Every structure is written in structure tokens, then in C-alpha cells.
């Protein structure tokens, strides 16, 4: 193994500081299941968390902080969706609506039931998990594209409910939510909310990473790889598919709840098919079946969105000053679609794979080939 061993003094414990081995020599299952192959990775994580919580919220400009918060919310939902699509292999086109269910549950709990923030958010997740399970029921009999179409129908039905169930959801006007307080701290500012979002994000990522290493996660992967073989090995497929739907919707609902509190007021408009597509785009561009990939994807898509938004605004201002009356806003959609297509054709494993290649080429330097 490529590890350095230091003998502290005579005959005492051998302290091993692990660096990366130059090859993959797993000898036990424990080694294969480890999250961090080396201590260096663990150190990086610690450093990353320190930067995330200690430096970013205090140095960032308010606008940047807003973008980072949105990235955090989307990343939580994307991790959930990746558990469903990337690990269990069940495609859902309804996650935009599930996200909306979470947002609406949190808003309704906050306004109608006076639920405190700490209870409303997990409850929103649970409600969404139940809804997601209900829409996952068709997966008993349906696979692949049939299931995709069923979840597409779920998306439209939920959208209809958001608009039409005026008594509960406030119809097209939506709901405005009072500012949340947590342990007496006002969560109205970007900075305080940053901590809420990213504590949730850290916990949910940690849960997802560990979930995959349990029997549940292995069952998910078995179903994805070959459902008939999985059934043959005694995995109750339907139970695990529903469980996957539930967990994934829980993530979406939790993210939706955070979104509702962060946005202060919600309308049915953002939770449309476009949002579902955006989530899928995130995990495809990030990398299917990769938790860090979902985060990379969220960063990529949200940043792209913001840049395109600013670019169109900028170009429109120029156009207005010259006297050209063209709107360039649709160009944003065009670039967005193009990005999805290019990624699928040229790097189908997504940014996670790009990241891996870059990393290993550094690691193997100067003998990378």
C-alpha cells in the first residue's frame, strides 16, 4: 500500500498516515466501502467544511450568497433525485412538483397551523414522501418509459392541484410566509439562512452517502442493474422501489420547504415541468449515480442560469440603447438545451467523471496517460 509509516518510538503504536495508493488494491469489503480512501481526503473535507461555514458566509457579497443558497437548496433536491434515478434506476419527471409539494406543505404548516420552523421543514419532507410514494405506486407494474410517462402525468396533476385547490394553496396568488425564527434567531437574512440551508445540506449529503453503503443502498443498485436478478436474489423489489421514491421525495420536499421559507412567498408558477427537467439536467450534467456529481451539477446549472440571465439583461440593455428591439431572452433556453445535449453526447458520465479524470491526472503525474 502506498502509505507512509512512522514509528513514533520503540515498539509503540504505528501511526499510519494514508496517502493515495498507486492502484486499487482493496483486500476487504470494509476497504471497498470506505468513503475516504486516504486521510488526505478526510482532511480536505474538514477544510472544505471550515471554508463553507467559516469563510464563505462572511466574505461573500449578498448576491453571491443568494446564489450559493439557491445552489444549496437545488443540490439537496438533486441528491434525492440522484438516489432515485442514478441509484435505483427509476426515472421521475415529477420532481419539480414534489419540490412544490414540499414548499406548499411548509407554507401551509407555517401559516395555517403556526408550526415552528424546526418542525415544519421535516414535516414538509414527510408529507412529500407520502405524496411521492403515492405517485411511485405505478412502478409496481411499470418500468422505464412507462414509469417516466406516469410521473409526467403526476407532474401535471399536482400542478393542477396547486392552482385549483385555492382554499389550501391560495390559488394563483400563492401564500406568503412569515419570517422564520430558530432558537430566537431571525432567519430573514441571507447569511443566517445560509447556515440553515448548508447544515441541512451537510446532514442530507452525509445521510445519502451512507445510505448507499447500507443494505438499502445495495438493494437500490441491484434493482437498477438488473431487476429480475435482484428479485431472484430475494430483494422485494416493490418495497425498495417505493422506499426509493419516498426517500427521494423526502429530499425534494425538504428542499422545497427550505425554498418556501427562503423565498418568503410562493406561487404555483415555479413548480412546473421545467423545474423537473432542470433537476434531471442537474444530475445528468453532474453525473448519474454520484452524490458529489449532484452537487457539481447544481453548481453548474444555477451558475449557468444566473450568467445567462445577466447576459440577456446586458444584451437587452445594449439593444435598447442602440435602438434594436430584439429580445434575447429565449437565447437562454437555447444555450441551456445545448448544454444538456453536449454533455449527454460528449461526457455522459457528467462533471463527476471530469473531476475524477482531472484529479487522477494530477495524482498520477508525470505518468498519467
Amino acid at each position, binding site marked *: 500500500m502506498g502509505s507512509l509509516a512512522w514509528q513514533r518510538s520503540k515498539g509503540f503504536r504505528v501511526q499510519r498516515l494514508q496517502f493515495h495508493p498507486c492502484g486499487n488494491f482493496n483486500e476487504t469489503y470494509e476497504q471497498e466501502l470506505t468513503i475516504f480512501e486516504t486521510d488526505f481526503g478526510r482532511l480536505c473535507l474538514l477544510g472544505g467544511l471550515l471554508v463553507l461555514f467559516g469563510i464563505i458566509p462572511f466574505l461573500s457579497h449578498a448576491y453571491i450568497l443568494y446564489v450559493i443558497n439557491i445552489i444549496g437548496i437545488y443540490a439537496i433536491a438533486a441528491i434525492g433525485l440522484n438516489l432515485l434515478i442514478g441509484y435505483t434506476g427509476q*426515472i421521475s419527471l415529477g420532481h419539480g412538483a414534489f419540490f412544490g409539494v414540499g414548499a406548499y406543505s411548509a407554507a401551509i404548516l407555517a401559516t395555517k397551523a403556526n408550526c415552528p420552523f424546526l418542525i415544519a421543514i421535516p414535516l414538509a419532507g414527510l408529507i412529500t414522501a407520502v405524496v411521492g410514494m403515492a405517485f411511485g405506486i405505478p412502478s409496481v407494474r411499470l418500468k422505464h*418509459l412507462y414509469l417516466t410517462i406516469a410521473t409526467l402525468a403526476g407532474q401535471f396533476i399536482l400542478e393542477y392541484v396547486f392552482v385549483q385547490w385555492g382554499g389550501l394553496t391560495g390559488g394563483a396568488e400563492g401564500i406568503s410566509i412569515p419570517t422564520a425564527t430558530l432558537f430566537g434567531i431571525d432567519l430573514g437574512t441571507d447569511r443566517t439562512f445560509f447556515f440553515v440551508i448548508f447544515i441541512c445540506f451537510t446532514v442530507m449529503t452525509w445521510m445519502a452517502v451512507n445510505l448507499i453503503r447500507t443494505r438499502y443502498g445495495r438493494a437500490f443498485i441491484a434493482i437498477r442493474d438488473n431487476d429480475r436478478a435482484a428479485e431472484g436474489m430475494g430483494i422485494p423489489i416493490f418495497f425498495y422501489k417505493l422506499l426509493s421514491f419516498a426517500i427521494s421525495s423526502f429530499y425534494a420536499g425538504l428542499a422545497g420547504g427550505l425554498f418556501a421559507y427562503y423565498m418568503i412567498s410562493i406561487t404555483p408558477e415555479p413548480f412546473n415541468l421545467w423545474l423537473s427537467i432542470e433537476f434531471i439536467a442537474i444530475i445528468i450534467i453532474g453525473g448519474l449515480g454520484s452524490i458529489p456529481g449532484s452537487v457539481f451539477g447544481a453548481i453548474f446549472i444555477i451558475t449557468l442560469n444566473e450568467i445567462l440571465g445577466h447576459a440577456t439583461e446586458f444584451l437587452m440593455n445594449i439593444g435598447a440603447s442602440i435602438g434594436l428591439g430584439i429580445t434575447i*431572452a429565449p437565447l437562454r*433556453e437555447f444555450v441551456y438545451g445545448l448544454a444538456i445535449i453536449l454533455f449527454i*453526447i460528449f461526457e455522459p458520465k457528467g462533471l463527476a467523471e471530469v473531476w475524477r479524470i482531472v484529479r487522477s491526472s494530477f495524482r498520477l503525474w508525470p505518468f498519467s496517460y
Partner: protein
Amino acid sequence: MEFFLQILINGLSIGFLYALAALGFVMIFKSSSVLNFAHGELMALGAFLFLVLSTWARLPIVLALLLTLIGSFSLGFVIERFFLRPLIGEALIEVIMLTVGLAIMFKGLMLFIFGGDIHSYPEFLPKALAFHWGAVEVPGVYVASFLAGLIFLALFGFFFKYSSQGIYMRSVADNQRAAMSLGVHVRRVFALSWAIAALVCAMSGIVLGIINGINVHEVSSIGLKVFPVVILGGLDSIGGAILGGIIIGLLETFTGGYISTALREVVPYIVLIIILLIKPYGLFGLAEIERV
């Protein structure tokens, strides 16, 4: 009674339109099992091409129609060659997302060029097509769309039944590997099926444009309505697509007329879920028996 008849006729004509749109969809699915999310955008592209040729370039209608069909036929080829071919054999979700990406790209492009307003064609249909039947009035466009649909159906029926290319396409749909080993050029079949599907899309887009005027958003939402239609009829059945289209069209207009207009947009999807739960392969779809 008059109201009922009017709704019936509206429903039939909308249903026929759905059927026409679903035809292209089934065509792609039958030969390459690709779920095409860019369907509505392909329809809109055809409709706009016709608009450009007929009103902006002021070509005679027949010539414009012919050029549109040729144009969308080649567009189908291009799409297959550059976007779908690299993905042969890839996972389902990637293919689906690719068509979603195409849809977004085309939509952005069309919004950029034509904007989000409704455009309409000049009147060119002969007045004689419209007819009155008692108090019920059937506008000429409906008759025209019905006729266009019938012509296309007959053409495709013959194409699939008798022409060698049609038989190749059916063989590829049935069993790709067997078809390949018997010397069918599978990739050419894929390309051809996309080209034909784009052509059918353009045709249905034009008919839609004549009836309602063309608006990018509206046409692309009709592209999504294709899903309930084809699921109801069976994903790989052309006859099923037509019947499914008509049933969904009737269902929509009757819900809109008698229950509530807001429900109208969702009813197809509710039906879709029910069908998927009860009879997932639709009315005429080929049931692949696979129980897990």
C-alpha cells in the same frame, strides 16, 4: 343537443389533430424505441417553416407546402445523424434527456426568431369545404384537417404494408438484431423513421396552425398531450394512436364543456395514470409480458 353536437364535432377535430400528432410519435417509437419529448417543437418548426415560406417569401401555397415537407424531412435526417446516432445503445434516460434538450433548444430558437405571439396563415382553403348541417356548423379547416389526416393514414398504411422500406422499419421495430442479421440497414431505418416522423410532425403542425394559429408555447404543450394519446392507444400501434387521439380529444372537450374548463387540461393525464395502472400497454399495444 346543439351544444352537444358542437362539442362532439370540436372534440372529434381536436382528437384527429392529436391522432395526427401521435402518428409521428408512434413512428419513431416503433422503429427506434425513442421517447421523443421534442415532438411538439418539431410540429412548431414545421408550422413556422410553412409560415415563412407562404407569407414571408410569398410562395404559392402548394410549393410552400412541398418545400416545408422536404425541409422537415431533411431536418429529421439531421437530428438523427447528429444527435441520436451517438446514443444508440445508451441508457434510456440519456436518450430521453437528449430529446428534452433538443426540445428546449428548438423552443428557444423559435421564440428568438418568431416571439411568443400567435401567428396565423392567410386564408387559402376553399370556402366550399365548410358545411352546415342543421344548426351545426363545421368550419372548413376541420374538414380539411380530417381529409389531410385520412390521406396521411392511407399513405402510411400502404407504406408500412407494402413498401420495402416500410417492411424494413417494421422488422427493425420487431427485433433489431434479427433484422440486422437479415441484411436490413438498421441505421438507415432509424434515420428514415426520424425523417418521416419530422415530416408528419410538420404536417400536423401546419394543420394545427390553420385551425388555431401557431404559438410556440401552445404547440409544444400539444406535443406533451401526445403521451396520454399514445399510452391510451398503445405505444406501438398506429391504429391505437388514432383511436386514442380521438378519445382523448372528445374527453377533453366534453370535460371542458360540461364539467370545468380548468379540468380540461388535466383530464388526459388522469386518464393516462388510470390506463397505466389498469392496462399499461394500452388498447392495441403489444403486451411484452414481463413480470417483476
